[in-house]
């Protein structure tokens, strides 16, 4: 008898310890179709959609999560646009912005009354596990995309999950489920076929916890956006400075390599003509964790540094310097106008770097709408060598100017001339 009881207990224990039966995409869709909505940004005058995305119920049932970039237009022109949701059977209502996490592209919205049952959130399942992204692709109605979890991407500062599935425009802000129907993240972006990105749900949980009652006006919103971006970027630069920087040798200079897991360095040497009388080597390093700012500015938080080495035994000094000067003209890649940023302010120095003289320029420009945010461009070109040239270009966008100086200093101090 005892042995039968023991066997029964062992069996029960076995049942209770085994995973809950996995749900398929059909079941997940059915469970959540009334909890996932289309998020619309509408013009107050025309009542027509200006942009669309997806969102889902979280928190106390009256809150809805989406991407910041879905409702970014409202930040710029809150008097012109407002946010609304549309659900199954045409259920709709207006939403108010109550929380932002600009760095992770999240926004928290609130309806005037409860909308439904909140979706439960869960940590990331193991790599390779099936995950399901829901949303409203291309304004065609709610759908679900099946894919697998590719894991947290350290090159995005752990702020993105790789989703090996297909996300399409309009699905941004929708939930990504595990096979238990729990949200493990929020759809955010796609690179190309079946390479998409999800924001981990922990950032959304943090946002729900710290959400405020809302924002009083557009100035308030922009201040908050600027504050968050600057806080993120300053912390990012501090992380960069705290890292051990690997060396990278480029001919006669030892330089900082990829200074963070978020940075990737590529050989960017231009293919030269077979009859070129010089050699040119170029390495370009960029980070991957760009921050969406708004409809006009698109992305900030871009860190790019490039190294160019130029040498020739065939060109005379004047020929060499004509070529060298023509190459020394990098700019920040962005399409901006006077409504977005100020003009650049630049100054020139001749700096001693590892016993070598470098003609350096430091430029900054300020954002019109976002107080304290700047774009910074630094260049340093080796001088005094007849047929050897080298220059560094370092650019950063959407940063606190003062916070970039220690980074530039470390770059220069890390650079070593190899005789």
């Amino acid at each position, binding site marked *: 008898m005892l042995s039968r009881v023991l066997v029964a207990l062992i069996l029960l224990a076995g049942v209770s310890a085994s995973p809950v039966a996995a749900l398929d995409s059909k079941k997940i869709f059915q469970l959540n179709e009334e909890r996932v909505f289309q998020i619309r940004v509408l013009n107050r005058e025309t009542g027509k959609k200006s942009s669309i995305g997806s969102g889902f119920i979280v928190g106390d049932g009256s809150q809805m999560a989406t991407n910041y970039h879905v409702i970014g237009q409202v930040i710029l022109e809150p008097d012109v646009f407002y946010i609304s949701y549309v659900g199954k059977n045409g259920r709709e209502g207006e939403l108010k912005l109550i929380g932002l996490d600009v760095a992770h592209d999240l926004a928290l919205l609130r309806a005037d009354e409860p909308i439904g049952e909140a979706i439960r959130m869960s940590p990331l399942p193991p790599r390779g596990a099936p995950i399901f992204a829901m949303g409203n692709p291309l304004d065609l109605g709610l759908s679900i995309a099946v894919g697998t979890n590719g894991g947290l991407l350290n090159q995005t500062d752990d702020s993105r999950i790789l989703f090996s599935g297909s996300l399409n425009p309009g699905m941004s802000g929708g939930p990504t489920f595990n096979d238990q129907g729990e949200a493990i993240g929020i759809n955010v972006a796609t690179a190309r076929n079946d390479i998409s990105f999800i924001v981990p749900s922990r950032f959304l949980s943090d946002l729900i916890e710290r959400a405020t009652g809302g924002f009083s006006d557009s100035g308030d919103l922009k201040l908050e956006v600027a504050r968050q971006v600057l806080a993120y970027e300053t912390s990012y630069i501090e992380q960069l400075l705290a890292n051990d920087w690997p060396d990278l040798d480029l001919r006669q200079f030892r330089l900082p390599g990829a200074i963070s897991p978020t940075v990737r360095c590529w050989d960017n040497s231009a293919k030269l*003509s077979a*009859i*070129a*009388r*010089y050699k040119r080597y170029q390495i370009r390093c960029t980070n991957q964790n760009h921050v969406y700012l708004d409809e006009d500015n698109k992305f900030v938080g871009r860190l790019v540094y490039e190294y160019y080495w130029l040498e020739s035994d065939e060109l005379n000094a*004047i*020929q*060499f*310097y*004509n*070529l*060298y*000067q023509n190459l*020394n*003209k990098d*700019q*920040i890649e*962005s*399409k*901006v*106008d*006077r409504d977005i*940023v*100020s*003009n*650049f*302010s*630049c*100054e*020139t*120095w*001749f*700096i*001693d*770097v590892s016993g070598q*003289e470098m*003609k*350096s*320029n*430091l*430029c*900054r*420009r*300020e954002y*019109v709408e976002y107080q304290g945010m*700047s774009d910074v*461009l630094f*260049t340093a*070109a080796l*001088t*005094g060598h*007849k047929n050897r*040239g080298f220059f560094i270009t370092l650019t950063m966008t959407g940063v606190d*100017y003062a916070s970039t*100086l*220690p980074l*530039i*200093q470390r770059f*220069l*101090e890390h650079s070593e001339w190899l005789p």
Partner: protein
Amino acid sequence: MAALILEISTRGLHRYQPLESEVTTIGRALDNDIILSDPTVAPHHLKIIRYGDDSVEIVNLAEVNPTRINKQKQASLVTGELPVNLEIGRVQARLLSRDYAVPPTRQLAGGNSPGHLFGHSYWTVILVLACLVIGGLEFYLNAYNSFKWSDLLKYVLRETVLTIGLFVIGLSILERLLVNRWEIRQMVTSISLVYLLYYFLAYLFEALDYLFSAGWPSTQFRFGWYLTLLPCAIALYLIHISHLKKSKSFVLAILIASPIAVPSIMQSSELRALLDDFSSSAKYQNSLSSLNLHLQERVSIETFIEQAQQLEAGEYAD
């Protein structure tokens, strides 16, 4: 009875007609003593009667476009004072006495002195050759790939010969229209001089950019060249080669320089920045020089960082 001369001016060119008979008729009809083929001139426009007391009577005969005598419409004028200005339709004329003083003789540019740039054609050849050398040198100093003589020849033909040639042709035609003369040799000499001067100054001011670690020398040069030096060079040509009056020369110089200067200035980033007040590009000192002559001192990284903290914020455009 003193002899009279009728000076008829057409497009800056004067024609002189002695009035020897007692009565001279002027008009478009072929039975006149002096025939003016201008359509604004009447068939019988006026007649000039000479008297024994050295006075002269001018009688208007035209109903359409009547003769203006000394800038006034009047049927006739008897006068002993010369010169008398006449407007016959749109033809300008003056009645002069034979002893009317002519302006002093203007010396040919360079005279016949072989040492003067405009004095002998070998100077023209030397200057043109210098331009070709400068054009070739420019190609050579920017030839980063393997050097080919055929490429150099093409470049010099396109950049130097064509540039100088077009200016010579264009400005010579203009000169012909203005003063009814061809001054091809002087024109080639002058344009070659201007071409050389431009290159010399452009390189000089570029070197100054590096010396001062600033962009103002080149900017000042570009504006100064198109707004001052080029019009002045043209005016000097018009005064000394074409022998036009100074005031007229400067006005013409501005008009001639404008089609060259205006597009060049309008395309300059400095003017666009002035007009638009906004640029998305950072205007930093990217000039580099093999001589590496600069007035700014070399600083340590720490000093640079210290000074960089004071870098002023960018100015917002209006």
